[in-house]
């Protein structure tokens, strides 16, 4: 069964705008990670945030984590056409050692 659910399922914005994707999960976690997938093949790791962290930045990416609400958000600022991809959150569950992925958000950046 899937742990995380991304929202929205699909997002289409203009180049230069900011894109925000959300992830909700059900069980207690040790960490949460965001990945990007182009063309339906391998995933690329973007950022990892631990359960005792609330916000993390990496370049144009900003991730927040609210463990009380069991949710996370990924913000991509100043979007580019190359950001077009599917974005997945993955949770490292407390008491387990596996990564469980959500259904993903398909992001389209229009030039």
């Amino acid at each position, binding site marked *: 069964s899937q742990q995380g659910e991304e929202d929205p399922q699909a997002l289409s914005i203009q180049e230069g705008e900011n894109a925000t994707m959300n992830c909700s999960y059900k069980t207690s976690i040790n*960490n949460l990670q965001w990945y990007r997938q182009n063309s*339906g*093949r391998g995933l690329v790791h973007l950022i990892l945030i631990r359960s005792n962290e609330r916000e993390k930045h990496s370049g144009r990416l900003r991730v927040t984590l609210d463990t009380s609400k069991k949710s996370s958000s990924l913000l991509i600022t100043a979007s580019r056409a190359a950001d077009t991809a599917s974005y997945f959150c993955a949770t490292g569950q407390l008491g387990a*050692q596996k*990564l469980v992925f959500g259904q993903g958000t398909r992001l389209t950046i229009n030039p």
Partner: protein
Amino acid sequence: GAGVSQSPSNKVTEKGKDVELRCDPISGHTALYWYRQSLGQGLEFLIYFQGNSAPDKSGLPSDRFSAERTGGSVSTLTIQRTQQEDSAVYLCASSLSNSEEFMTEAFFGQGTRLTVV
């Protein structure tokens, strides 16, 4: 190699035949994961290895699916008596560690696209 390698990249097989999918993780990575992804869907967890042992096999869809890892390195996912619903992309990933105290990022291979006809 520099990254996670999966073979074959594409496999077409007849219903009822057995298939073996191979994953070569990054050298030194102790954790190895297998996932399945149907078209346009999320990643379905199948199994993970810590070294050569598989503490969690709960994601394997049926007893037709099995996996092993030898020498703390190469892993093979075997599907026996394939069915059309097994058609999907099978993704392998490895990470340096997956302990609760020190979980690290996972590196993915490009996947094997399995088509059962």
